[in-house]
């Protein structure tokens, strides 16, 4: 079993694609940049489950995104953030 591709503190971008099957990535985080908060182990890929296909385990991460990154003209405190759990195949390197 290979190790996690990302480690806590690393910056990542969430992929901006929209497959025509259930997936656990809401539109408002697609294309946004965040930081890996922690690695959450391996879990079954939702897209495969949704299509009734056999189980494939994928690494899951908790990604921390600034609210200011998510919403244009965000009025709240600059340190406000959202933690969202995203699978590794939805993450891209962001340097």
């Amino acid at each position, binding site marked *: 079993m290979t190790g996690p591709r990302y480690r806590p503190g690393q910056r990542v971008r969430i992929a*901006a694609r*929209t497959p025509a099957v259930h997936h656990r990535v809401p*539109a*408002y985080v697609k294309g946004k940049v965040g930081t890996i908060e922690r690695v959450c182990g391996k879990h079954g890929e939702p897209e495969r*489950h949704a299509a009734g296909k056999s189980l494939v385990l994928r690494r899951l991460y908790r990604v921390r995104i600034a609210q200011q990154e998510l919403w244009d003209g965000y009025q709240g405190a600059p340190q406000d953030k959202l933690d969202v759990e995203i699978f590794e195949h939805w993450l891209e390197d962001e340097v």
Partner: protein
Amino acid sequence: MSPDAPDKAALPSGPHDIGGLPAGPVDRAEHDTAHWEWQIDAMLRLAMQKGALTDFAELRDGIERLTPKDYEKLSYYERWARSLASALLKKGVVSSSALQDKIDEIRERQASRR
């Protein structure tokens, strides 16, 4: 891509994908679960136990394929019922004629009670 580049417009993936869109207040009223809603819940669990559906994600997938109009109109367990029915039809567990016969039978039973 630079972090300052404008975000690629991410399209909503279905009628459920509405996070961040303008909306009214949340209805926080408590409500009882009707008997038929427990029955839908039981049917889903049975379908999963029998292997007709492998995961809750399959139910979600069917719900997310509803038209925005249907999604808006249907209640929580009505969405479950529609998704479960389409999954069981697709897999050939139930035929569309058998489903229609049952719907007709229940309609007649309800009409005769009125």
